């Protein structure tokens, strides 16, 4: 259960982690930029693409404290979280393109990426829809004594959903290894957090349920990683926790939204809270990396993510007949297509 490995990880000085955290955040940012490009090139499946630019530290920082065997769910803005848990960016981009080679064979798309092998129990297009699953996964981890934790990643908007409170209450009541991560990018679509709640100090709600809870500034990925480590250690020991990562949604809600409802001054200030730039500057000023080395790393990441577009464009669409696959288990018969049913009925008539 409570393996010593976790303690050693907690002891690691953040200096040694920052280059890795930076690299992951750069990969997330660049991937998301390429998702935007895929849309512009008319190669994405639809326009409901939610980019996590500006909130990379939440994914990179919290996921650094997770380990193999841990499970998690994400909201609709979940590309970065999955990358930080080891996603193959090609298969993810192919899914966003609705291609057969994608993680879910083109059935899910950007908002429904999942990979059981990596513990990804699923991204969700229902706000709050993925949260209670971590209660169940926490129960399973305890039952099987696997030592795993389960983390739910969701936005500030999900704090409007009653199911969050039902889930936190159960996790606290049963002392389950569950982590609730609220990525507070200040907006749910066009609604600023203070327009959606009379008390925007979101972690206080979790405290009221008896969870360990704190808020961390997402500008500083090391602070996020540190908070993540601290809370995850507790979670592994059966003390459920809630972490709010404060950040700013740099762009529109989805690919087409230009955020006309936001004050341009606020937007500019928000975009100045850039966790990727902040980490880069920290690496240079603390002499952990040369600028030229970071340029090279950025270029390497750009090449990696450019390739995801080429990969996706080259893939084929799912075959029409695949639509009947996976409604039920592969051992079960597939639903009868409407066309063949009509043929059968009218051939007899």
């Amino acid at each position, binding site marked *: 259960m409570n393996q010593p490995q976790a303690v050693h990880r907690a002891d690691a000085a953040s200096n040694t982690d920052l280059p890795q955290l930076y690299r992951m955040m750069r990969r997330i940012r660049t991937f998301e930029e390429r998702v935007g490009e895929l849309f512009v090139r008319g190669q994405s499946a*639809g326009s409901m693409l939610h980019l996590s630019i500006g909130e990379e530290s939440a994914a990179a920082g919290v996921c650094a404290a997770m380990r193999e065997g841990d499970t998690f769910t994400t909201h609709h803005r979940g590309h970065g979280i999955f990358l930080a848990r080891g996603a193959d960016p090609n298969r993810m981009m192919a899914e966003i393109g*609705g291609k057969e080679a994608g993680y879910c064979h083109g059935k899910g798309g950007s908002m429904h990426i999942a990979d059981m092998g990596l513990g990804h129990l699923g991204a969700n297009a229902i706000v709050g829809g993925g949260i209670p699953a971590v209660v169940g996964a926490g129960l399973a981890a305890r039952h099987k004594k696997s030592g795993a934790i389960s983390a739910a990643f969701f936005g500030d908007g999900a704090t409007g959903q009653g199911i969050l409170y039902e889930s936190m209450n159960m996790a606290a009541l049963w002392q389950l290894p569950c982590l609730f991560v609220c990525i507070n990018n200040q907006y749910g679509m066009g609604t600023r957090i203070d327009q959606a709640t009379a008390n925007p100090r979101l972690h206080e709600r979790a405290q009221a349920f008896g969870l360990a809870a704190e808020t961390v500034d997402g500008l500083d990925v090391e602070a996020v990683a540190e908070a993540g480590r601290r809370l995850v250690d507790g979670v592994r020991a059966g003390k459920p926790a809630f972490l709010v990562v404060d950040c700013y949604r740099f762009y529109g809600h989805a690919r087409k939204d230009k955020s006309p409802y936001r004050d341009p001054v606020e937007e500019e200030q928000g975009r100045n809270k850039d966790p990727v730039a902040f980490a880069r500057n920290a690496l240079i000023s603390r002499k952990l990396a040369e600028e030229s080395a970071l340029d090279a790393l950025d270029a390497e990441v750009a090449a990696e993510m450019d390739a995801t577009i080429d990969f996706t464009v080259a893939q084929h669409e799912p075959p029409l007949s695949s639509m009947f696959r996976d409604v039920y288990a592969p051992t079960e018969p597939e639903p009868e297509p409407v066309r063949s049913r009509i043929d059968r009925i009218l051939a007899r008539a």
Partner: protein
Amino acid sequence: MALQELTYRDALRKALADAMTENPDVVIIGEEVGRYGGAYAVTKDLIKEFGGERVIDTPISEPAIVGAAVGAALAGLRPVAELMYVDFIGMTMDQLANQAAKIRYMFGGQIGVPMVLRTQGGTGRSAGAQHSQSLEAYVMHTPGLRLAMPATVADAYHLLRQALTKPDPVVFIEHKALYTLKETVDLDAPVPDWGKVAIRRQGRDLVIVTYSRQVHYAMEAAKKLAAQGIEATVIDLRTLNPLDFDTIRAEVEKTGRAMVVSEGVMTAGVAAELSARISEECFDFLEDPVIRVAGEDIPISVSTVLETGSVPGPQLIVDTALKLLTGRVAA
């Protein structure tokens, strides 16, 4: 009034604005309905016209939105609650099915719940499994709830205006692929009453009964069939509850053949109900089985190929009509 070019979206917005102007008790409550102007821009700028006290932005709390509308209706307002996608209706089903639908009956007729729940559904935007469904059967399966699904610009206006005068809760389901539909309409011209179907086209060979976006597909199919000498009647249901079965029966009896077309999944859906009813009530007049053309019994995929392949379109309607009328299976 004169003819004007309007989109389905404009017509809905105008219906809301006109109703709000006429009746100060009409309020709108939902996610992003105010400042944002609605996820599909139906309530655009209404907040500027009517203020934040009547166009109320909410947190992302669907059960409480619908429940608050129920309470507001009980307390004398005329709420229009908005559910951004019909796919979220399951979250609100207690408030809708156990509260709104049953209050008049459970409480012995003391009070009704005159509210409208506006929402939208259907495929057409690669919105994936949780944002593309056609869930009208859930509503139609619940006694106490009225259900309207406009197909045309004029009906978008009139059905919404009428819904806002009804004594009982009305679920009003728009189609996301119709918002940009543009038609030239005279909103002062008479339309069928609430609860009456519209016969969009009259033919002698078969009756196609449908609603919402599939009305347009059925009309397109009917044109192609006419080129092959087959004349179809196209019935647009407009309201699924109340259901104008008298007109459907009369039309089916004239032709002896009926096809029911729905975007919702086939099993236990709206098409299933209509097909059963036509089979029962028109049995002596039918020359062929009542045939259902409906969505596949599967979830909707984000892939456009799978998405469009999983719901009826004009071609499937044409093919089915040809098979029905020529008695042969086309290649």
